[in-house]
């Protein structure tokens, strides 16, 4: 049976190893592996192009380990070792340790509050000498595994609100911790777990409500508040008028419409302003506003700030130099100036002039856009799309619920990262610091996605096995 294949290898004699290697590779989805290799290579190339200056030698820079791309190559090596180790691991190991892993992940996040290192304004890193580990990033894997474990339990009935709430608690507690660490972007990623939950029977109404809420909040930002109140009222009045026959038969609908109207206007007039002035920090509000092209005037909310809040706001303002608007503007210039064919590899003036801040990490896509133009950047987008479709395809062929939930989690997280990261570089989403999977510079991000993907590949290789 397959169990033997997945078993711990015994290094007795060479023929054994040969045999085991062949056996080991059986069932592995090589398409996934190739996608992984191609994307990681593009990442290294792009990071190299960001740092490149005329006359630099690729190899000498690589050996010296002083440049980001050379460190990224090192991370790729570590990630490769990690990947092989995962492929050598019994897939039962992941189900068995899912809850334990989750506990450790949460613990690590808690450790950062005590012994964390502050990078870019968030104290979410644990220094490990040669690189800094970000537990919030790693915790995505554990959360995915834990969710899969929970949903695949026989006794879990996901129809029941209790189970739904518990699933939400599993996924959202790391998110809450992230927000406390000032990593709002990473926290948002945890909302990606709604997708596998939806696949497992979470009622669509949650997504609809969530979506409507988002539309309402965005309209609050964009539309003048009295006008919006009038629009909401007229929508309510219109639906009452249109549904007047049904209402005659069922008074409940009228009640529902009125409740919805009250809630909407309430959110629009009180909840959102409260959120913006009291909960979110002014610089965050500014980021969100700038995404929608609204000039945010902080003086309005500065008035009702406590002195400490004001001081912190000023500090944040100083820290985020150059401004977020500047980031997006430069990012758009870099991508836009690529044109159809791009400026050519290592020929990007914006890339090399350091115009785009954080280009090697969050804004790595600008390097693709400038050097390789429309064909290159849409090529990368298509690559990601195919990659995700492949994961969905893999998810659907799983016989085990655990594997399926996990695969959907991976797809959802990848989707969230890719969509938000690229949208933010082209000015379609607010700048929240999340990486472009496998392309962005950074050991934590690369290792997280490597482990996440290779666990999936391992699980998929053993798809004949029923796992809990």
């Amino acid at each position, binding site marked *: 049976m397959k169990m033997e294949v997945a078993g711990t290898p015994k290094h007795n004699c060479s023929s054994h190893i040969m045999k085991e290697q062949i056996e080991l590779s059986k069932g592995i989805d090589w398409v996934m592996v190739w996608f992984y290799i191609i994307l990681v290579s593009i990442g290294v190339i792009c990071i190299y192009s960001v740092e490149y200056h005329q006359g630099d030698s690729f190899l000498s820079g690589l050996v010296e380990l002083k440049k980001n791309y050379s460190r990224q190559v090192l991370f790729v090596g570590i990630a490769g070792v990690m990947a092989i180790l995962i492929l050598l691991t019994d897939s039962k190991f992941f189900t068995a340790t899912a809850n334990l892993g989750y506990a450790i992940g949460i613990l690590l996040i808690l450790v950062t509050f005590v012994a964390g290192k502050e990078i870019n304004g968030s104290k979410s890193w644990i220094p490990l000498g040669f690189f800094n580990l970000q537990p919030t990033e790693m915790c995505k894997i554990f959360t995915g595994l834990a969710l899969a474990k929970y949903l695949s339990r026989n006794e879990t009935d996901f129809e029941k609100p209790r189970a739904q709430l518990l699933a939400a608690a599993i996924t959202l507690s790391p998110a809450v911790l992230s927000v406390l660490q000032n990593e709002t972007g990473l926290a948002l990623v945890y909302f990606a777990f709604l997708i596998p939950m939806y696949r497992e029977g979470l009622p669509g109404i949650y997504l609809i409500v969530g979506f409507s809420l988002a539309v309402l909040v965005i309209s609050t930002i964009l539309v003048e508040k009295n006008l919006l109140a009038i629009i909401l009222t007229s929508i309510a009045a219109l639906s009452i008028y249109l549904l007047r026959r049904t209402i005659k038969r069922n008074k409940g609908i009228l009640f529902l419409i009125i409740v919805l109207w009250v809630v909407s206007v309430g959110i629009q007039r009180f909840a959102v302003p409260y959120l913006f002035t009291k909960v979110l920090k002014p610089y965050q509000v500014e980021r969100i506003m700038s995404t929608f092209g609204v000039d945010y005037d902080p003086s309005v909310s500065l008035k009702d700030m406590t002195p400490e809040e004001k001081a912190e706001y000023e500090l944040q303002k100083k820290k985020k130099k150059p401004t977020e608007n500047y980031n997006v503007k430069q990012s758009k210039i870099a991508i836009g100036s690529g044109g159809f064919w791009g400026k050519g590899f290592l*020929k990007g003036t914006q890339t090399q002039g350091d115009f785009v801040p954080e280009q090697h990490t969050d804004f790595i896509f600008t390097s693709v856009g400038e050097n390789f133009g*429309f064909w290159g950047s849409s090529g990368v*987008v298509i690559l990601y799309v195919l990659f995700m479709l492949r994961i969905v395809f893999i998810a659907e062929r799983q016989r085990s619920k655990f594997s399926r939930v996990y695969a959907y989690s991976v797809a959802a997280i990848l989707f969230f990262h890719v969509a938000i990261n690229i949208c933010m570089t082209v000015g379609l989403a607010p700048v929240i610091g999340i990486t472009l999977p496998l392309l962005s510079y950074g050991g934590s991000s690369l290792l997280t996605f490597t482990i996440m993907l290779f666990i999936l590949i391992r699980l998929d290789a053993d798809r004949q096995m029923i796992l809990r």
Partner: protein
Amino acid sequence: MILVMGIIIIARLFSLQVSDNKYSILADEQGKFRKVVYPDRGILFDRKGRAILRNTVIYDLMITPGKLKGMHLDTLSLCRVLSIDTTEFNKRLQVAKKTYRASVFEASLSDEVVARVNESMYKWEPAFYLQERPVRDYPFDAGGNILGYLSEVSPAFLEAHEGEGYQPGDYAGVAGLERTYEKVLMGQRGIEYWKRDNRNRLTEPLENKRFDTPAISGQNLHLSLDIKLQELGEYLMTNKVGSIVAIDPKTGGVLALVSSPTYKPSLLTGSDRKKHYTELVLDPRSPMFNRAVNATYMPGSTFKTLQALIGLQEGVITPNTTFVCTGAYYGCGRPMRCIDPGVFKLKEAITWSCNTYFANVMQRTINNPQFGSAVEGLNQWAAYMRGFGLGHKLGIDMPSEKGGLIPTPEFYDKIYGKGRWNFCTFRSVSIGQGEVNVTPLQVANEMAYIANKGWFITPHMVDSIDGGDQYGLLDSFKLRHYPLNISDSVFEAVHDGMQGVMERGTGAAAKVPGIVVCGKTGTVENYYKGVKQKDHAFFAAFAPRDNPRIAIAVVCENAGFGSSSSAPIASLMIEQYLNDSIGSPERKARLEALAHTNLMPKRILDEIRKKDSIQAIKKAELERKQKEQMKKESQVADNGNLNPSVESGDPRKHGRKGDESHKISMIYGALISYHENGSSWHSKA
């Protein structure tokens, strides 16, 4: 959902990258820098290969406002080195801050200031730096009016020369040869493309300089000028107003083109360029006015040679035609006086410059029955004159040449009305007075024509251009002009007359030992603002007679008889050119004596005196005001001393501060008064 995301992103990418080129433009603006590389301007050589106009380097102090941030700038020390006050410093800083790019803070530093700036550069780096700039250098420091000068291009110039690669702040030739040959001298500007980073620094050449065009230095010019002859001419014309034009008759190349008073060309290059320029413009002697080609005079008796040629060509006289002069020309009732009465054939008439003779010649020409009327006669006569190069621009390669005046029937119709004039109306034209104007250049060209016995080549400064004449600038200097078809014997007769001038006639004082010179003097009556002035002295000649190598015209304004100043100057010029030196000690003594003769016209001396006295009055006024103010301030300071409760600070210190600010106001006051003074003079000039 995944697909929808993919489509949305790709659509957005399409709109950003393909359908909208706004971002490419923005990217080029901030990421690339187009650096103009200035080539060396062409060098000018004289006929013997001596460089007379070269390039050297001066320094500008540049400022990059962006780099001032976070820098502790030692403003005071910089002000001290540049000798400016802090107000001026801040004013310039404000101007510089209007742009992120580096701009000139102080242009053309003097050598001394460069040394001092270099010494303490570390205090002002990196916001300030020295940038070298090539400027023109004049090894002989002569020929200012010929060579011209460079000046920052004006908006009008930029508009007129759009597409030729000029940028605001560039320098271009605006006078003399620098202007005429700007196209070839400027060379081709190179363009270097640089990458620029987010702090506006140039990092490295764009794509291994693939798009760069190298700067090609300007083409060198070889002039027909003899710089030694030019220097001698300028020396001889010291303290005289006028000009010397010497031409090689065989080539039309100009050997010397002196306009006096002139200026040292080095004044208009380097650090004090602007100050000198203002001084020169305001000078009542108008040193920047190139009289050799831009001033017109009545030609006087030098005109008679041409009258003779036309008469001979038309057959109204022969070399043997005789006229009797009894002391005046009576042809038109009122007598026209003549200096030496007698009986003259053509040769003698030229030698003794007989007015009566040439009045008769011109009368015969105009009233020639062949032409039927005086109108047609004058028409024919004017056509001949134009053929000689008079009455229109010759086309020398110098800017703003004047054409002079040769009267036509239309000209007199306008003044007197149709048919209401005849020869007697303009009889004085026959002897080069009245309604006839020529430039000294035209007179010299006339001599070249006579020397060549019937042809001339348009006078020009530049013989050849290194690397080829790609714009055809020299094409017109290769043609021989044959305005008349006159036999050699006719010319011989005129030559005889002109040789006679030098041997026994009016030019006897200007003989050149061992050389047969043919010449003609001219004494020109003239008026300034309606008041009769001392005569202009003209002399025109060529030498040697048999194989002419130099044709020369000398004009000394208000110097009296042509024979006393212009003729000896011409003779020295001829000797210098033909023998390459002034031979005997007597001649050298003559040279010095001439150079030290002050013939500055009274009208100009008056103007200089007027200007000086006004300046003196203003200066006295200013000093008086300063004294008054000083008194007041010292009183204030004294009060401060008496009443220490006025300010908590040290009153003595306070007083000194006041003094300092006062000094500054003094400087400003002086500047303002100087400008006022200047502009009033400019308008009067």
